[in-house]
């Protein structure tokens, strides 16, 4: 199962990642990070397909994407 990891305290809440997810699972968290922004996050991780669009458009290298190794 692919997985997205957000380094939430680096996030500046620009929301660009929320516009590119084909599964619409990247959302802005209700909590506030160390910088005072609502950081981006994924609640329904099981829907992630590991396309890495979110990481690709993130200007602050907040996002890491992991995938199963292809056999």
């Amino acid at each position, binding site marked *: 199962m692919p*997985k997205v990891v957000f380094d939430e305290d*680096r996030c*500046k*809440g*620009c*929301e*660009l990642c929320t*516009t*590119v997810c084909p599964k619409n699972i990247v959302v802005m968290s209700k909590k506030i990070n160390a910088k005072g*922004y609502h950081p981006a996050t994924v609640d329904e991780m099981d829907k992630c397909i*590991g396309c*890495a*669009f979110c*990481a*690709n*458009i*993130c*200007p*602050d*290298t907040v*996002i*890491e*994407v*992991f*995938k*199963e*190794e292809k056999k």
Partner: protein
Amino acid sequence: MIKVAGRPESLQSKQFHYCPGCTHGIIHRLVAEVMDELGIREESIGVAPVGCSVLAYEYFNCDMHEAAHGRAPAVATGIKRVHPDKVVFTYQGDGDLASIGTAEIVHAAGRSEKITTIFVNNAIYGMTGGQMAPTTLIGQKATTSPYGRSVEAQGYPLKVSEMLATLTGAAYIARVSVHDPQHIRKAKAAIKKAFEYQIAGKGFTLVEVLSTCPTNWGLTPIEALKWLEENMLPYYPLGEYKTPEEVK
């Protein structure tokens, strides 16, 4: 599990100072990913500009040299002539490259200096607070063109890629954009080509990257991407303006 996206080794872990949603961060990461993929981090020397990306020397994880406003291509020339076997690149904005640094960029291209320039065009002076740039579009408002840029008063925005592509010494000139994932992928491919052509000794290479400035455009980051797509793409068409195949 393998990591398919994240911070490349050629980027320091330091947090960017850029405003939320500013696409400088994307472009930094693309350059760093290319350096990683080509395995040239320890062979590279970057030249930082004056402007929003003045602190680029704190972000790229390679030897860096901070230049005066507009002079990065001259500084890069000095470095490359001393170390012809190293990879030398400049990272410059549109005020830096297309206004105060026009002489330096034109002649670096003319001499076919074997360097790579990443030219970030966001049609405005960001660092100094949103003044009109040489690339500001007709009708676009800036703090020094408060009524919108007019042809009568300020003339036409410079099309740098088209202009430089006319020079024999330019080996690879491309204009790309980072307003969506597909274009970001293409932008990276162009940056990679530029570095590869430099390494192959083809001559001067430049990638113009259309970028946003949500803060000074007065838009949200999402609106800014849309504004870029709708307003900048028609005036600054994307594509490869020069490739080494044409040079021969």
